[in-house]
């Protein structure tokens, strides 16, 4: 089991919409194109559901970069583009307040077949995090004791 103990330096959380980025990530997989493995993609219906506090909380728990991959104006949801942009701006304000590099949170429009843009975003974020280091350098992660014994 020792090989599992290697710690990837950084963790990138990718919140990707089912109608956009998540399908784009699947398309990338179907093309068998490699990208860094410290990327954790969670499907979302529409990113407009995340309040800014959610992102701050994620950084505090030790996520070093967050990519929001949405469909933007092509989304089946009317509010996705404008609503998400608004939330992201609010999040940037909060991040600045707490001294978190705002480049750690990025919004990208990825379509269902956007293989190249997907790879570009992932690789850019990976390179960025290599440069600026883990989020723990900026805030103390609150990896709460409670977590290890989640209900």
């Amino acid at each position, binding site marked *: 089991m020792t090989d599992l103990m290697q710690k990837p330096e950084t963790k990138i959380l990718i919140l990707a919409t089912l109608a956009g980025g998540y399908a784009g990530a699947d398309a990338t997989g179907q093309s068998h194109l490699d990208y860094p493995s410290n990327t954790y993609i969670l499907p979302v219906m529409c990113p407009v559901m995340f309040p800014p506090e959610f992102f701050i909380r994620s950084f505090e728990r030790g996520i070093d970069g967050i990519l929001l991959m949405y469909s933007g104006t092509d989304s089946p949801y*009317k509010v996705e583009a404008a609503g998400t942009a608004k939330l992201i701006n609010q999040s940037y304000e909060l991040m600045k307040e707490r001294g978190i590099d705002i480049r750690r949170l990025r919004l990208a429009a990825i379509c269902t077949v956007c293989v190249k843009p997907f790879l570009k975003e992932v690789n850019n974020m990976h390179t960025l995090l290599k440069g600026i280091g883990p989020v723990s350098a900026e805030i103390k992660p609150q990896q709460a004791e409670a977590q290890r014994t989640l209900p």
Partner: protein
Amino acid sequence: MSEKPKIGVYTCYCGGNISHTVKCEQVAKVMADQPDVVISRTNMSLCSDAGQSQIEEDIRELGVNRVVIGACAPSLHEPTFRNTVVRAGLNPYLYHHVGLREQDSWVHSCDCDGATCKAVRLMSAGVAKARFLDPLEPIRLEAEKQALVIGGGVAGLRSALDIANQGLRVVLVEKSPFLGGRMAQLAKVFPTGEEAQRLLSELIDEVVQHPRIGVFIQTEVVGVSGYVGKYGIDLLQHGRGVTAENGEALAAGCTQFVPDEFNYNLTERKVIYKPYQGCYPALPAVDWDHYDGESILLNGKKEVLQDQAQPYQLTVGAIVVATGFDPYTPHTGEYGYGELPQVATLAELIRHLAVHPEAKSLRWNGRIVRDVVMVHCVGSREIEGVDALQEDGLVNNYCSRVCCTATLHMIEELHTHFPGLNIFDLYQDIRTYGRGHEEYYRSALSSGTRFVRYNGEDRPEVIAALEGDTHPVLVHVKDALTYNQELEIPADLVVLATGMQPRQIDDLVRMLKVSRGNDRFLLEVHPKLRPVETAVNGVILAGTAQGPMNIQESILAASAAAAKVVSLLGSGQVELQPFVAAVNAAKCDGTGACVEACEYEGAIALETLVENGKEVKRAVVTAANCSGCGACVSVCPNRAIDVQGWTLAQYEAMVDAIAMDIVDLVEAE
């Protein structure tokens, strides 16, 4: 949550697709030690009957009440496993699917440890989410047993007829003034040699006489709302401009001529016109795009025609998109097209022959033709960096499928009608793949057609001959079959076998929210699992809107589309996924922020309730109108609202699981 979660975790090898990279056994072992996990297994192929039975057995025997599966993309097999857990008596939404193939093993094939590590985190996130899963009930809606078919070509007609024959009502919408689409422009069709227009008119007769089909001609779809089972459609029908009484007379009296696009502008027609004898409807129509507004003499009176467009609204359960293709139009100068009068497209030649049916010899541009050069793959199989870009900056890198057989079919026709022609066929690969198609290749060879194989990176050149040459144009090509010998072919006519292009239907694509593939044709969900369905529920593809096809293939696709429509609407009910907003009334204090944020009419509203004798305002969701976008979720100050199945709490748990160090996980063993 009433019962204690008992989670079953399954890591699929996917027949090696996952296990070649991810150490599935290790993943399973780590998962087995997670809290609440009662069983963690691996399987070679979880979607197989045996794999599914295993899950069912665990639910029944071990009392598993939450299922987490790490396998291929959820888009492929989420429905499969939902059915599995249902069979075992579990609510289908007590199951969570983690994509370990497209998003892990296939993209980290050089990094087995990293991929395994990632799988462990994603799976534990899945387990974390599973703890928060609640049973959900799908939203059942009455479905309108009526379908909309967009496009009156062969695919649309066939699709409409098949749907109607299976008992549903159909509205068929055609934008142009006549039914039949591109097929009407063909003469004989391969491989049977039947007349295209006769086949079409038989089909059109069946469609227009069908009691359950309504046909709207000269009609555009201008608005789409709603969802599967209940799409609201706004139509705009243009006026025909003439009546049954005055149609022929007006057409006769009309003096304005415009190029006839039905004949690819080789001929002219009046602005009040019928494209061909035997067209449907037989009544002439006014070409509003070109009509100059001048008056037309009718029985001594001057008449000015006016387009009295009429809007319609209707409700349909499903939409079939059969909008067809556009023939590729070469750029000016591409193989001399548009610059040399002796260069034409295959489609143009078909129309040319159709308008001169009695011609004893082939004449083009006033000259008798003796030597014809056919060029394959014009606008198809283009190579990035070699061929000129299309308007949208892409190249048509796909094969258009029909041009090879169509070209060879044309060669046979030419040889039959004009014996003695010398025909030269410039190709890359002859793709006569269909049943009976290879016969056309053989026939073209037997009749003396000279085939020259060119390389896609070195396309032939068409140039004007020098003064005094025996022929007006010369084609230069390097022949791979003679070891790249440079050939010069003198020609009287160069025919470009142009391929198919996606149709310019951007407005419709936007309204329907369907996606396009890399080739810009409309995209199906999966070529094998759901080959004619789009990612939008209730929007089905038929024919060449999806990609190049010949008539036979269009008909098959149209019938397959009909089968999907009937499966969907036949019962009169559709089920929607229950992923809509839900309010926790206990936490809601009626601020109304959610109502403000919501963009969907009738989806959420404040209602006055009596609570403990006090009147309070509480948000209430109307599920059928809610899109599940969650705009309300992020604005609620009390976290009183969530999208069912996608709650914030679940995401937070998932983030925590991902953030947790693997060392901890290993220690936790």
